[in-house]
């Protein structure tokens, strides 16, 4: 397929994308009774890995042990499969518009190395925070808001509030 470099930065109309995403979310709720999410998959990966390495350790920690309740295996969690789907879906969309290739995206004012360190830091913070709230932007805020859940609205306000609170200090990373 011919890749048109001009298409790289052409994204869908946000309202159109949002509408489609809402329909997908609606369908998810209708089919499975639960919302979409992402951070749960990371939790499953961590728990499964720790369990493989040190099974007794996971049994003693209530946070890990909770995920094994009823003979479940965390890695066969619904969210893990959904996340695999997201990777595939993103790849399809990315390759159709010529965005799928390996690179580091960063502001011209910072180096790749700096960007990666901050990505690691940000990821760690996000992973850590998502456990407190029991979900991330998609799992807690978006899916929670869709069912008008009080927790979802609090999560949305505090994530965006927190980001606006700290945005000023990290402006050099982005602008």
């Amino acid at each position, binding site marked *: 397929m011919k890749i048109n470099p001009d298409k790289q930065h052409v994204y869908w109309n946000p309202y159109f994308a949002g509408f489609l995403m809402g329909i997908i979310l*609606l369908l998810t709720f209708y089919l499975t009774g639960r919302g979409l999410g992402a951070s749960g998959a990371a939790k499953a990966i961590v728990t499964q890995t720790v369990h493989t390495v040190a099974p007794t350790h996971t049994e003693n920690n209530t946070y890990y042990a909770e995920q094994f309740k009823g003979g479940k295996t965390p890695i066969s969690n619904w969210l893990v499969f959904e996340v695999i789907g997201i990777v595939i879906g*993103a790849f399809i969309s990315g390759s159709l518009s010529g965005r799928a290739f390996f690179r580091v995206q960063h502001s011209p004012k910072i180096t790749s190395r700096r960007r990666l360190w901050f*990505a690691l830091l940000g990821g760690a913070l996000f992973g850590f925070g998502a456990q407190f709230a029991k979900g991330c932007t998609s799992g*807690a805020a978006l899916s929670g808001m869709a069912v008008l859940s*009080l927790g979802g609205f609090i999560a949305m306000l505090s994530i965006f509030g927190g980001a606006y609170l*700290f945005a000023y200090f990290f*402006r050099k990373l982005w602008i």
Partner: protein
Amino acid sequence: MGPLIPEIISPEWNNIIAIVLGIAFGYVLESAGFSSSRKLVGVFYGYDFAVLRVFFTAAITASIGLLFMDYFGWVNMAALDGLPARVYPIIVGGIIMGLGFVTGGFCPGTCITAIGIGKLDGYVFFGGIILGVFVFSEMFPLFENFYNSSNLGDVSVPQYFNISPYWFMVGVSVIAIVAFYVTLQIRKRIKKVEY
């Protein structure tokens, strides 16, 4: 009446449906530009409000849709999985996530779309999430009391404030549209950032 799993569709289909819905979700996320961290954080610096637009539109579409389905009896909205409102843990977690958002430039869902199109910062961000989850899980006994505190249960906002969910929905729609309009005006005033 929904949800279709497990009564109408057997649970074996659950994982296949998960992948299909994931593909659709990933496709839309990527097409909306959510695989680009600089586009995502634009919402915090005023040069790109795509996140806000997509996010709010999706939430409104889904909840109006669910309210209609609930009204026609296709789905019992009260029985759907919401987020248990553990007020303070969610606020603390949310603020930590906000900090993670402006430093890392992704949220977990969008970082996975970035992985899909080969962004190395996405891979590193995901590694970070794994690290964060691991640290949290190991430290969990320390937070256990806080984690379970101030739990109001899985209540909805209209239920909590004892208002009609439909009028609440009208309010949310109006707020969203005002937000769309205001952010449009803000973006016009802020210097464009090429990314």
